[in-house]
């Protein structure tokens, strides 16, 4: 293995071991913060070690042992992170679960993982778990963090987090040797032990439990730390679901291996303020977050006065021109440098300040393709935002964009210690120390994903460009062909559409059909703001989506995409011939999106079969009725007549000329 010196583990191969190492080395450095009761409550590494020890010993006294599974359910809270380490110290395996998933989904995961204990956030989660006690017969104890509303519950098998910790402290007080024994317990552990089980939500089928070993996580994390020069002085904001590999690696594995501080926000409605207060130095967000921030900036700037907007536009142009070059360390004319400096004072600095990214050293976006405009916007501000490509099965890292080698349409070079190849089918495959151990109780799936010599199928189709960077085209299984034989990569088209702020979602159809047609969702914030400015009245999403002006606006976007497509010889055949704007927003509650907000293509195809039919039978409108689930769980139906528009296509290469004229 080609690990660099500082990435080596010195025998600290499991997180409990790393914890006790950190407690010694970084004892008085802040390890965790949580905005609670109005201030950032802080814990140093040695305090964290003590907290975890007490809780862990308490858990043991409740009967948790090696090999047991512990479900972790709730929002990002230090105590829930600690619970994972506390379980690992006993040889148990934590299983973080998406706390907002519906009971049915959660019950399946918990039942499949055979969890014995659950550490949860509050009453809501306790109630949820109690309601599924029949599906999860293995569950014996629930531990909650927030006592509110739970006082009158039967506490035979229900415990407060503090009670458990108190018990642990009591036991330690009674038996001085206990702390030592506890540490000895995990010093016997090996790096190859299972550290955590993460269930991937998957676009199809039941979730699968990805088993990752300590080695997988710790080695990947150390490599990433070295790659981006991260050390114990970093600050990160832990706000993404704990059940997601990204958060697990960024907020736990890398935090522990580098020794940096993890900050948990007060709540989802204070996240913007909390981010600004902390100003993370290492920041990760899916493209959606960056998109939203940009949309907000643009919407708010629309309301600014004329001069201010002119100033903003002027300096943003300067930034677009030279910002990235300066960031990449390229030569830039002196005058531009001065202008950029001025812009930094007047616009970029304040913007970064408002977003809370002033101190950001490195930022990553992944999960989906980010719009090149959006990506460039942040880079132009001088933010070192980069893309990476990863998977749960790889302990995140497959490829990374190295500093100075940033290209909007590629996802970077292989991460340290990662080998990459493209299979004959076009599928991207990799092998690395982070490759997962296997799917829990699903050998069949493990075998079909991971070859005997350690190569993993990503399921994505891609190419390695001349500069060695990986370019992802689409899901391997989604890449299809039109009836005339042209290549049809739906995701590629959809992403191009979604890069327009007005378009929130797109679903493209075309495989084994005569032409490409798409469903669109408009972005209510962006289009709503446009409507306000143009005195367009609307009462609902549905009404706005059906508005003729909105249709024409969207039509121009689609046309632009067709132009773009026509300029790429491989994709030119798959220009959009027809489109419609859906009468409702695609929603995870209706099963149309996954919990990570990815579209579920086949589900949508089933659900809106009549609309697809209409797209391909040439009709100009179609009446539909759709069942929906409201926020409060009630069901209902909405009806609408949806308009369908035809599009002109462009000849290969002609698009460019027209655009140039």
């Amino acid at each position, binding site marked *: 293995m080609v690990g660099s010196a500082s990435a080596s583990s010195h025998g600290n191969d499991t997180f409990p071991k790393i914890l006790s190492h950190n407690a010694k080395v970084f004892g008085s450095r802040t390890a965790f913060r949580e905005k609670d009761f109005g201030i950032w409550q802080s814990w140093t590494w040695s305090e964290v070690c003590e907290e975890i020890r007490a809780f862990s010993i308490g858990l043991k006294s409740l009967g948790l042992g090696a090999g047991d599974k512990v479900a972790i359910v709730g929002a990002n809270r230090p105590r829930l992170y600690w619970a994972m380490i506390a379980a690992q110290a006993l040889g148990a395996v934590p299983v973080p679960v998406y706390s907002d998933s519906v009971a049915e989904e959660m019950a399946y995961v918990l039942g499949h993982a055979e969890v014995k204990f659950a550490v949860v956030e509050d009453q809501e989660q306790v109630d949820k778990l109690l309601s599924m006690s*029949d599906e999860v017969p293995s569950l014996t104890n629930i531990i909650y963090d927030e006592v509110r509303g739970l006082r009158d*519950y*039967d506490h035979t098998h229900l415990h407060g987090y503090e009670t458990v910790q108190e018990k642990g402290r009591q036991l330690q007080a009674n038996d001085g040797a206990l702390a030592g024994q506890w540490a000895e317990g995990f010093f016997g552990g090996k790096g190859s032990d299972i550290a955590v089980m993460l269930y991937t939500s998957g676009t199809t089928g039941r979730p699968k439990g990805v088993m990752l070993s300590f080695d997988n996580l710790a080695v990947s994390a150390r490599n990433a730390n070295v790659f981006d020069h991260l050390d114990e002085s970093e600050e990160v904001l832990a706000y993404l679901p704990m059940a997601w590999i990204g958060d697990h690696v960024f907020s736990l594995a890398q935090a522990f291996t580098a020794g940096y501080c993890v900050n948990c926000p007060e709540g989802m409605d204070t996240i913007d303020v909390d981010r600004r207060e902390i100003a993370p130095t290492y920041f990760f967000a899916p493209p959606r977050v960056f998109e939203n921030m940009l949309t907000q900036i643009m919407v708010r700037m629309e309301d600014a006065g004329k001069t201010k907007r002119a100033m903003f536009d002027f300096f943003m142009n300067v930034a677009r021109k030279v910002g990235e070059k300066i960031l990449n360390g390229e030569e830039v004319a002196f005058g531009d440098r001065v202008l950029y400096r001025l812009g930094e004072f007047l616009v970029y600095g304040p913007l970064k300040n408002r977003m809370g990214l002033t101190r950001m050293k490195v930022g990553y976006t992944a999960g989906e393709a980010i719009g090149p405009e959006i990506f460039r916007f942040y880079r132009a501000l001088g933010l070192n935002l980069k893309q990476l490509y990863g998977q749960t099965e790889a302990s995140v890292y497959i490829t990374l964009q190295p500093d100075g080698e940033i290209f909007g349409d590629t996802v970077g070079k292989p991460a340290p210690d990662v080998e990459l190849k493209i299979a004959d089918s076009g599928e991207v495959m990799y092998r690395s120390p982070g490759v997962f151990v296997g799917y829990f109780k699903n050998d069949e799936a493990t075998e079909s994903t991971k070859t005997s010599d350690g190569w993993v199928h990503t399921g994505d189709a891609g190419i390695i460009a001349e500069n060695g960077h990986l370019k992802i085209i689409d899901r391997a299984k989604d890449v299809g062909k039109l009836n005339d034989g042209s290549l049809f990569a739906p995701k590629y088209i959809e992403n191009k559409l979604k890069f327009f702020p007005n378009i929130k979602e797109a679903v493209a159809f075309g495989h084994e059909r005569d032409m490409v047609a798409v469903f669109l969702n408009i972005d209510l914030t962006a289009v709503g703001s446009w409507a306000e400015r143009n005195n367009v009245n609307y009462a609902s999403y549905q009404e706005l989506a059906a508005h003729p002006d909105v249709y024409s606006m969207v039509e121009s976007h689609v046309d632009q995409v067709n132009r773009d497509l026509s300029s790429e010889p491989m994709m030119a055949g798959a220009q959009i011939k027809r489109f419609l704007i859906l009468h409702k927003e695609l929603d995870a509650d209706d099963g149309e999106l996954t919990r990570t907000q990815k579209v579920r293509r086949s589900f949508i195809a089933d659900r809106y079969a009549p609309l697809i039919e209409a797209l391909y039978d040439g009709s100009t409108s179609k009446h539909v009725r759709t069942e929906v689930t409201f926020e409060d769980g009630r069901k209902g139906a909405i009806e609408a007549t949806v308009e369908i528009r035809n599009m002109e296509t462009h000849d290969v290469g002609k698009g460019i000329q027209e655009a140039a004229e």
Partner: protein
Amino acid sequence: MNAFATEMSAEPASVAEAVPREELLRVDNVSLSFGGVKAITDISFDILKGEIRAIIGPNGAGKTSMLNVINGFYHPQQGTITWQGKERRKMKPYEAASQGIARTFQNVALFKGMTTLDNIMSGRSLKMHRNFFWQLIWRGPAEREEIEHRKKVEEIIDFLEIQAIRKTPVGRLPYGLQKRVELGRALAMEPDLLLLDEPMAGMNLEEKEDMSRFIIDVNQEFGTTIALIEHDMGVVMDLSDRVVVLDYGKKIADGPPEDVQANQNVIDAYLGVSH
């Protein structure tokens, strides 16, 4: 056989019936008039420790006047008030506060110039004692006291889920949130008896549900006795343990919600049958 199916029940065990409750406040034969206009005529009722007591009645029935009598703002011409077993003399409103009676108001009476945090902190006034000279110096005792009470206030903010508006001046908040802040301010007094004057007036359904939940939580988490005036009969019937019905300043019914609902006098009063 799993452990939870039988042994765990999400419903709290109901102990109210088992233990007879102590009397917290009793009003005997109270009458109140303003310059010859009778607002309250010969009313008697009691409030038991730990219960939610509702006072209902049509407009102008004397409900708010009754609350004003209880917290010493009005002085009845006749009748006695017994508070925690002792007959109460004529007292000032601030004395009622120091004896553990807090209230909210029909039309939100927040301190408009202050933030949410300061408004709730103001509820701690009675429990803070550092004198003027410590306040001048600030460092040391005054600051420590402030921090100690800030912690308490933050718990209330957390309890009422108003973290996001902690530092917003209350004048800028929507009405529903103002009501919540006002409840927080009353809670900060850690009262024995909490008087709520139409806590849900002017709220939409969702806000009403939130407020109901908070009222029940207050009652259960802190064991606070609550007397509330409310127009929304549905809410009253759901929340309260016992209900007093007033009409034209007289008591026309008193008892558990279901009894009161069936009472002919009450039905007449609400339908406006003339006397």
